[in-house]
């Protein structure tokens, strides 16, 4: 018993480890063995071609992630936050979005970025230290990565309040999706976002990827109840989905986004998944978790189950997989090349885009620094 359990041992009000057996309490449409199952609340009409497309997304996103890890190991990136294990949660939810929907990511949403059409090389810019993001969020309706934990959930809610004021809720409406992790649910900002979204009935879907670990802290450091159940206390529905099941993530997110677009307000989706890699490339998970846990989750791999389904149902032939392997290699090579060719920004660019209007103080600093740099060039000459 730890100090946190003092006085609580006799109370069985809440289960200790974050919920009932997962199988009893989440939406699943594709089992880890690759078998399609139905759920009465989430019927999913989906063609073989669409499932192949999702599989392609999953494979390419994992390939991008592997390439980025390798680039970091080789010193080409400062750091990388791997999405390994969370591909289905990101691709399933990302493909549930319409072009006019807006997404607010954390710093790990590489799969969502892919679905929104953002060039993966832009993500590398951030982790290489060439920019703080630098893409135009309006171009793909994909906001900048947010590193401070949970801040973006309020931005998403405010954006959704703007949609309401624009009269863009209803038939053919727009909605917002906010991504965050299990750790973020402890932040004040996230709880405030839940409150604001609830009382304003904002068209926002809170998509929590519960990957079980906030760096070294397991979920029970953050919550005594399954995270999705918190939504009820705030006054909107919460649902837990098998985060390693791309079909379930697609169906559940689609339904929640549609409800938001139509004016039915927010939903909290808890995608129950697992961070198979380290928190980032600077982290060493062997210090705080058991290898056996990872092995258990490998059996629930989000990609293998789709492959098993495609093979068993003969929805894809050998050629499909061979071609996809080749495409993955090509994508990996392309982003590697883009990374290696990425120029460092000019030193004076750090004075750009700080203010909308010219700022005399900053301009003076820039000019002084430019003159200072020139003294070195003269010295070299």
């Amino acid at each position, binding site marked *: 018993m730890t*100090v946190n359990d003092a006085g609580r041992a006799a109370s069985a009000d809440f289960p200790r480890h974050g919920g009932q057996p997962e199988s009893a309490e989440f939406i699943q449409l594709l089992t880890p063995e690759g078998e399609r199952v139905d759920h009465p609340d989430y019927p999913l009409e989906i063609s073989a071609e669409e499932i192949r497309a999702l599989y392609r997304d999953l494979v390419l996103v994992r390939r991008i992630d592997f390439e980025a890890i390798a680039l970091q190991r080789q010193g080409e990136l*400062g*750091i990388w936050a791997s999405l390994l294990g969370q591909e289905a949660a990101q691709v399933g939810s990302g493909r549930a979005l319409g072009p006019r929907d807006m997404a607010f990511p954390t710093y790990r949403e590489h799969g969502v970025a892919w679905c929104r059409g953002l060039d993966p090389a832009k993500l590398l810019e951030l982790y290489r230290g060439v920019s703080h993001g630098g893409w135009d969020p309006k171009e793909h309706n994909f906001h900048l990565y947010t590193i401070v934990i949970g801040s973006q959930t309020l931005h998403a809610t405010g954006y959704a309040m703007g949609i309401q004021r624009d009269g863009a809720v209803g038939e053919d409406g727009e909605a917002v999706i906010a991504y965050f992790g299990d750790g973020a649910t*402890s932040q004040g900002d996230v709880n405030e976002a839940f409150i604001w979204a609830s009382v304003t009935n904002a068209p926002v879907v809170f998509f929590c990827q519960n990957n079980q670990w906030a*760096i070294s802290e397991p979920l029970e450091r953050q919550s005594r109840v399954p995270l999705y159940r918190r939504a009820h206390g705030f006054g909107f529905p919460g649902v837990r989905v098998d985060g390693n099941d791309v079909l379930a993530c697609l169906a559940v997110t689609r339904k929640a986004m549609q409800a938001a677009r139509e004016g039915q307000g927010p939903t909290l989706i808890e995608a129950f998944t697992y961070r198979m890699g380290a928190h980032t490339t*600077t982290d060493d998970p062997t210090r705080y978790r058991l290898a056996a846990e990872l092995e258990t989750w490998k059996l629930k791999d989000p990609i293998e189950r789709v492959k098993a389904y495609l093979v068993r149902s003969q929805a894809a032939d050998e050629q499909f997989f061979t071609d996809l392997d080749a495409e993955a290699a090509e994508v990996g090579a392309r982003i590697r090349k883009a990374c290696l060719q990425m120029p460092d920004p000019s030193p004076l660019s750090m004075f750009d885009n700080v203010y909308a209007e010219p700022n005399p103080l900053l301009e003076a600093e820039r000019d002084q620094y430019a003159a200072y740099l020139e003294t070195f060039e003269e010295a070299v000459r």
Partner: protein
Amino acid sequence: MTRLTLSKALNEGLRKALESDPKVLIMGEDVGKLGGVFRVTDGLQKDFGEARVVDTPLAESGIVGTAIGLALRGYRPVCEIQFDGFVFPAFDQITTQLAKMRFRSLGHLSLPVVVRIPCGGGIGAVEHHSESPEALFTHTGGLRVVACGDPADAYAMIQLAISCDDPVIFFEPKRRYWDRAEVDTAGGLAAALPLGQARTVISGTDVTLLCYGPMVRTCAAAAVAAGNEGRSLEVIDLRSLSPLDTGTIFESVRRTGRCVVAHEAPVTGGLGAEIAARITEECFYQLEAPVLRVGGFSAPYPPSRLEEHYLPDLDRVLDAVDRTFGY
């Protein structure tokens, strides 16, 4: 004497504090099993238990807010904020509550809380991991603000901060965590320099160089380089940023007549501005040149590929030293 990194010296200092006072607690994100992302609390939970070394929920406002409550109940919490840029959710608790409780209670209440913050850049990190927010705290009455610059000082200062009855914002220079030096962990703190006192790192006669935290090593190297060119710089590690040890500062500047203040934080509204103003007020007739500041620019901290341009280095410090001779 034993040779320790700055990170390990802090770890040893925290260990001593946990051993000597059962009311000392450590709390923060990943400080337990992981031992902190910089390993400053490595092994402490194993040895002192989960009740004293607490992995908290991921909420900085909660870390400091509950530390205040624990302090009201008689504990001495040492909070870790994982990175400088993450202190802001806790800023409200620090500035509106932690700083003011003694004042509001007319001295009935003390909040002996330490808030450790790894600070500064230079490690190639992403956004919000390289900030120098010290001036935001020195601007707030009721807080002690200190910065350690080398392993021996880190070892002593963390213990002094914990034993201090005022709240202490404790800045740790993250790019110096791996610097090694001799640290005396056997003796007590009787001989240690008080927390509020500056330390003359290198004595000199021509220019006073004021610095703290990560800039101490940079400025010491600058003094050596200047010495090779026949110029004698006096390097003073301020250690305490609030209150400032103005006695040591003024004494030095009155002798040298020239002063440069170096910090990583932006110069605009930074601590250097406060120091320059005070020196001007008190040492005006001994000054041969205005007090010059070297620091970050008035722009957000840049992407890491540019941080070597943003961070003041040896050349920029020496450039400012040179300029003090141009008046």
